């Protein structure tokens, strides 16, 4: 006898299900259509093309759960629910195909392995996942989760559907005993408990079956109106994620002289993708657990930010949509528009209402939230867009930022030291300046810190000595170099940024610069990823990469490694933004001669020093000081040297050590200084 099961056993009139399914699907599609209309109030953004790359991203991140699995408990939990459910959906479709389209699939081994054992295991996995979720959400209660009724309903609904499914299976098995029943182990066990076949079982089965169906269809209808909407939105959001370099912010068109407003002040000024982000967010809170601003008790919480944007969208979109819909029809428009309540909603701004200015300025743009978000929500660009509004349209920002802006404007560096002094550090070192001799293998870009900051000048000096020792033909722009513009752009001052970029690009093109080496990850990121937006196409290399190349090729020989306990701090703009993790460690291994001590947070989980996103120039008034937190994390490895590869990190961690009174025991050093001491 071929193992088989009768579909719709004990059920009469199952075709009614299709009617109900149609009703459920109407709700389902209406629900998503409603959301679709919401996103459409956003501004255009072209994210078409690169289909294969995008599909790969979905395969890896949705089906493969690559990011979700970075955390064990929630990772396994969600993986079990996702795959359990997916397998069962496939099983359900097969049942439909068999019952009403004449397929003969539920036979033999396929029946035993997949439809029986496979689906049972999937169901079990899903139940385990759901139970884990319930335990996590209501017993373990991690701080990053907030509970809404929707969370409970969604979990209960899924759990009840799964359990009723298994009970149904048990009832069927109890009534129709077959030799292969054991292939459905869960149903078989339940059947065992139910005892010998009895008429009440058939009655219960029939009632339960319809209840199960009602719940399942209700579930489908409920999806787009609940957090369950993420089932489809998250993969779509993964599909539509930005494929631009991670470190490139969108170029703002400043040529438009008619523009009344720049940046984002109201929710509909975001792009559709930003609004999609808000809808795709599952409130998992991983961003929050990795946000230095939040962890240091500041106003910003990336999860809350996205949820607040979503909340604003849901209040405002229906009003804006009805206003335009009515507007088309004419007369009724006046009546609708004159309604004060509608007007007041339609004119709502985001900043100062749903999102406070404090939140906006607290972000260090460290990208930790974006790096950890399983569904690729883009928090940082949204904050920058709001900063753009505040700076470019309202001219409202922390007072210290004004000083930095003025300094960059007048002297091309945020410190405001006279531009004419920019090359002073290099004069004694005999570094050639492009204006005198522009024939060079590489242009060395010390950046403002390397040129002006006393501590970082020592790093620039170490770099020069290394380049000279390796016999590299290099030079600097000297007084013609200006701030790369990173801080200006990330503080929202796109106008100043573009001014600086244009001058730098023109200067470098004038000297036919091909390759740039810099020790500053901020300069590196901006020159490499953002200058191409302005016609500045140069090969940009970070000093960790270049120095490693010099060491590997033997142009630099390590004679006496430092031999101390060294911990390495990943700079956000080097690591998370540009995926440079290997080179500094390899270089450090060579120059230090010892195994690099890893802090608890390293690589893409590294913790910001507090200076990114222009925060270097702002006061940190609220909460704990981020640089102190990072210093403490570094000290936990019991190092003798805290090594950085970024001038801002060096300053922040150096200050942190001083604050701890440990500057004599533990040194903060740039990787170039360590290498310079070793060759």
């Amino acid at each position: 006898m071929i193992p088989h099961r009768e579909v719709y056993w004990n059920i009469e009139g199952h075709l009614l299900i299709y009617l109900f399914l149609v009703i459920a699907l109407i709700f389902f599609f209406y629900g998503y259509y409603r959301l679709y209309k919401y996103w459409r109030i956003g501004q255009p953004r072209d994210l078409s093309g690169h289909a294969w790359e995008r599909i790969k991203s979905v395969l890896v991140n949705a089906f493969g759960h690559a990011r979700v699995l970075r955390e064990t408990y929630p990772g396994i939990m969600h993986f079990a629910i996702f795959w359990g459910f997916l397998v069962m959906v496939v099983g359900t479709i097969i049942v439909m195909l068999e019952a009403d389209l004449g397929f003969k699939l539920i036979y033999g081994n396929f029946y035993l392995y997949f439809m029986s054992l496979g689906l049972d295991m999937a169901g079990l996995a899903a139940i385990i996942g759901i139970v884990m979720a319930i335990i996590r959400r209501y017993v373990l209660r991690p701080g990053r989760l907030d509970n809404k009724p929707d969370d409970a309903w969604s979990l209960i609904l899924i759990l009840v559907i799964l359990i009723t499914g298994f009970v149904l299976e048990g009832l069927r098995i109890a009534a129709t005993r077959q030799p292969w029943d054991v292939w459905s182990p869960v149903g078989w066990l339940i059947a065992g408990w139910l005892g010998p076949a009895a008429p009440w079982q058939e009655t219960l089965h029939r009632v339960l079956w319809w209840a199960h169906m009602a719940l399942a269809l209700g579930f489908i209808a409920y999806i787009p109106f609940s957090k369950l909407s993420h089932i489809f939105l998250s993969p779509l959001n993964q599909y539509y994620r930005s494929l631009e370099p991670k470190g490139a912010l969108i170029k703002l068109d400043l040529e438009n002289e008619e523009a009344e407003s720049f940046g984002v002040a109201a929710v509909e000024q975001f792009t559709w993708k930003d609004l999609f982000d808000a809808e795709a967010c599952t409130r998992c809170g991983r961003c929050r657990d990795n946000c230095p601003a939040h962890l240091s008790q500041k106003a910003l919480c990336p999860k809350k930010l996205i949820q607040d944007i979503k909340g604003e969208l849901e209040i405002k979109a229906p009003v804006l949509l009805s206003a335009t819909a009515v507007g088309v029809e004419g007369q009724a428009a006046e009546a609708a528009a004159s309604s004060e309540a509608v007007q007041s909603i339609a004119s709502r701004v985001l900043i100062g209402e749903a999102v406070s200015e404090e939140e906006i300025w607290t972000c260090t743009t460290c990208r930790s939230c974006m790096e950890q978000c399983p569904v690729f929500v883009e928090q940082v660009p949204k904050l920058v867009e709001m900063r753009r509004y505040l700076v470019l349209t309202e001219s409202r920002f922390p007072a210290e930022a004004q000083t930095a802006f003025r300094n960059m404007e007048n002297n091309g560096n945020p410190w405001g030291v006279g531009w004419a002094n920019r090359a002073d550090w290099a004069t004694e070192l005999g570094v050639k300046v492009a204006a005198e001799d522009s024939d060079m293998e590489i242009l060395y870009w010390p950046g403002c810190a390397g040129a002006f900051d006393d501590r970082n000048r020592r790093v620039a000096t170490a770099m020069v000595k290394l380049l000279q020792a390796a016999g590299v033909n290099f030079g600097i722009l000297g007084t013609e170099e200006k701030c790369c513009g990173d801080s200006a752009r990330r503080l929202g001052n796109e106008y100043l940024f573009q001014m600086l970029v244009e001058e730098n690009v023109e200067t470098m093109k004038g000297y036919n610069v091909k390759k740039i080496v810099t020790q500053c990850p901020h300069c590196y990121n901006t020159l490499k990823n953002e200058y191409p937006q302005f016609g500045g196409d140069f090969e940009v290399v970070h000093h960790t990469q270049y120095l490693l190349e010099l060491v590997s090729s033997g142009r630099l020989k390590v004679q006496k490694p430092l031999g101390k306990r060294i911990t390495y701090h990943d700079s956000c703009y080097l690591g998370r933004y540009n995926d440079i993790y290997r080179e500094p460690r390899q270089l450090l291994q060579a120059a230090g001669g010892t195994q690099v001590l890893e802090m608890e947070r390293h690589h893409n989980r590294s913790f910001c020093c507090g200076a990114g996103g222009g925060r270097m120039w702002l006061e940190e008034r609220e909460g704990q000081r981020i640089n102190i937190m990072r210093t403490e994390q570094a000290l936990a490895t019991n190092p003798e040297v805290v090594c950085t590869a970024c001038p801002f990190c060096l300053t922040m961690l150096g200050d942190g050590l001083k604050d701890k009174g440990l500057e004599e025991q533990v040194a903060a050093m740039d990787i170039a200084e360590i290498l310079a001491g070793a060759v």
Partner: protein
Amino acid sequence: MQIAVCLKQTFDTEAKIKLTGDGQIDSAGVNLIINPYDEFAVEEALRLKEKLGGEVVVVSVGPAQVQESVRQALAMGADRAVLVSDPAVAPSDHSQVAAVLAKVLQSEPFDLILSGWVAIDDNAAQVPARLAEKLNLPQVNMAVKIEIGGGKATVTREAEGATEIVEVPLPAIITAQKGLNEPRYPSLKGIMQAKKKELKLLTAADLGAELGASQVKILQYSLPPARQAGKKIEGEPVDSARELARLLREEAKVI
């Protein structure tokens, strides 16, 4: 309320000062900014306008590149500007500059004339007072707070070792001291709008200003000796403290 702001363009505070071959101040490559004290005046004018309505007119004297600074004031929110650009006006002769400004300011009625109390380049602090004298207006210098009401201004001003609150009938000339306000940073919107605002370029002749002969003659510019690496004072704390006090008094003449 019609408010005029007299504005001077100066070298950036961080500018490196060099001399040209013929011993003049070399302005090549130097960043030019609004004299910071005049910027306080612009800001104050804008705040008064926001409160009381009216118009803010920026008035300046200097070469063509002063337009940039004037545009910046317009970007901050001033309504229009007049720039007298005339090589015949010697910037070092404050009486001539005041004469030109006076002509502009007499050409239409103003309720209030504001400016910085001093310019950071020549540190002379003469033009506002000379202008007040030429226009026969009362003047109040070094204001840190200005309130307008009932046809008069109540001004809190810095005096030596004291803060004074004075009343002056309008029209009057009031000069700004640091602390009066924090000047705004022009928004991009403001910068865009400023491009379309009226900026009238005039010469001294257009105004019929009589300049007269310059009363001051600059004989020479020179650079001070480069900042020495500094004296390190050695010895026991008590001795080094005594020596420091002596040097500050007798050599540096600062205490």
